[in-house]
């Protein structure tokens, strides 16, 4: 489900802004680190620290979009990829500088400890909570995009930037807000993941590659596809580890390659 949140951010940015953002994984990492610091180190309330870290990452996202990404919408793909890759390098080392290179395990909030029986089997409360949170985000995203005025503007500019601009949508402003929104979604994934995952400098690059697999399987720029893709990858990873531990990672990329070869627009592409 953290993967879903990260992929949702990646998909939004690609679908609307047209940029494949390598640095989305770094935003995920920053969200995780921010929550870790606020909650694990400073001992703030769990919810408060999540909200604060979302705001921090949102601000960073705004700066990234306003000063860097905005200048590269019209240039060639390799440059876009390399620019965002440059951000990865910067953020990875920045994190090492501030927090050190050691992996850290933050404490679990007390009210999430323990298990509840689901279908007769014990199930960790936190996993259950994450699953519902993911579903809730999916629902909220769908409502925003389909039912609100803002969502309509986003969809309009995603399908035809010039036309949208001609009917009076402030495209630069909209793009900034979309990027910030996507950055916060991604950071939420990182933040929610902190109690059960380790927080380490490399998680950005590790996560983004899985998110790429997900978005490709679901179709680049397609949110519904990203959701299903996240489920597929999640199931594949967990069963893959059980059944053939050697080729678990391999299989994920096989799936990605097969989808690309057979139906490059993804399972849900038009």
């Amino acid at each position, binding site marked *: 489900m953290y993967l879903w949140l990260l992929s949702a951010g990646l998909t939004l940015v690609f679908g609307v802004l047209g940029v494949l953002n390598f640095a989305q994984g770094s935003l995920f990492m920053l969200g995780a680190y921010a929550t870790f610091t606020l909650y694990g180190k400073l001992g703030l309330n769990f919810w408060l620290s999540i909200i604060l870290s979302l705001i921090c990452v949102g601000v960073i996202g705004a700066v990234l979009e306003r000063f860097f990404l905005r200048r590269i919408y019209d240039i060639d*793909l390799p440059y876009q990829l390399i620019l965002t890759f440059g951000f990865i390098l910067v953020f990875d080392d920045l994190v090492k500088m501030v927090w050190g290179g050691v992996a850290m395990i933050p404490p679990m909030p007390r009210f999430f400890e323990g298990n509840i029986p689901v279908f007769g089997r014990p199930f960790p409360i936190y996993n259950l909570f994450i699953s519902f949170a993911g579903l809730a985000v999916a629902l909220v995203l769908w409502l925003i995009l389909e039912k609100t005025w803002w969502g309509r503007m986003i969809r309009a500019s995603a399908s035809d930037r010039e036309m949208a601009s001609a009917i009076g949508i402030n495209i630069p402003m909209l793009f900034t807000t979309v990027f910030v929104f996507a950055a916060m979604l991604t950071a939420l994934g990182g933040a929610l993941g902190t109690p059960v995952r380790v927080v380490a400098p490399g998680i950005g690059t590790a996560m983004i590659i899985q998110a790429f697999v997900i978005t490709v399987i679901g179709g680049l720029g397609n949110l519904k596809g990203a959701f299903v893709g996240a489920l597929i990858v999640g199931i594949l990873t967990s069963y893959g580890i059980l059944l053939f531990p050697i080729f678990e990672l*391999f299989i994920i990329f096989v799936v990605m390659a097969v989808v690309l070869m057979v139906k490059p627009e993804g399972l849900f592409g038009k």
Partner: protein
Amino acid sequence: MTKLKLLLLAALIVFLICLPSFTGKYLLYMTIQILILSVFALGFNLLLGYTGLLSFGQAGFFAVGAYACAKILLVIPSLLIGTVAGAAMGGIAALILGYLCVRHSRIYFSMLTLSFGMMIYSLAWKWREVTGGDDGLVGIPRAPFGIPGVFSIDMSSMGRYYYFVLIISLIAIFILYRIINSPFGLTLKGIRDSENRVAFAGISIRNYRLLSFTIAGLYAGLAGSLLPPLENTVTPPLAHWTHSAEPVMVTLLGGIHTFSGPIVGSVIFYLLKDIIVRVTQYWLIWFGAIVVFLVLVFRGGIVVFFSDRIMPLLKRP
């Protein structure tokens, strides 16, 4: 090529040949790394700069070359066989995977190469019996050059090995230069600039792309096979996608669409690294910032910057 350029080139080669006589081991080690990265990036630039395809899986072929060479050196101590096998394996892997990749272009091509590169990475990482898993292969000898039983030249000193890498790289660079200036190279450029026109001229775009991809894989494999005798180990991160980004960066740094771009980029990459590492251990921050700056400010790369801006200034009296 003008006379001046030829002269400069000759001076550079003489300089490289004389290098071991007045520098220490460290600088030789660095120069070997630069040469390896140059060969790697030159092959990559045949794809990006001349064919217009951005591959994010080149590290996979690099690793195939490195692992193949390492495996062979562990059994047969012959540098020549190891290198040839490494390059050939890289090329073969690229031929097979390329057949599947070249039907797409633009972003789907990049994603597909990324997934194949990561497949190779996951194999290198998890397939313990063959690749040694995350420990990698260790204890690879810097074997003598030659064919067992026929002749052999000792390569164990850094200076000797430097000459070996230098000669191989120069030959590789020269061949690639000829390829790019051949009708084949021109066709590739044509495909990059206008796919449809070339197709209308009756040329199979797919075959040309595949050939270009194979050559790039061959060069990646060659570059990879030069590494294990230097480092004495190979490890899975060689195949990781972050390693694939290296040739992309140095090519863009030096200048895409120019032949010497990747070489200049490689030199600058290692020089920058060396300088920054002296000051701070967090050199990637600065390198990342430089990359961002380059993309935003001068996108043509350093070679173009020099030939378009600086050279006219020099020529003006």
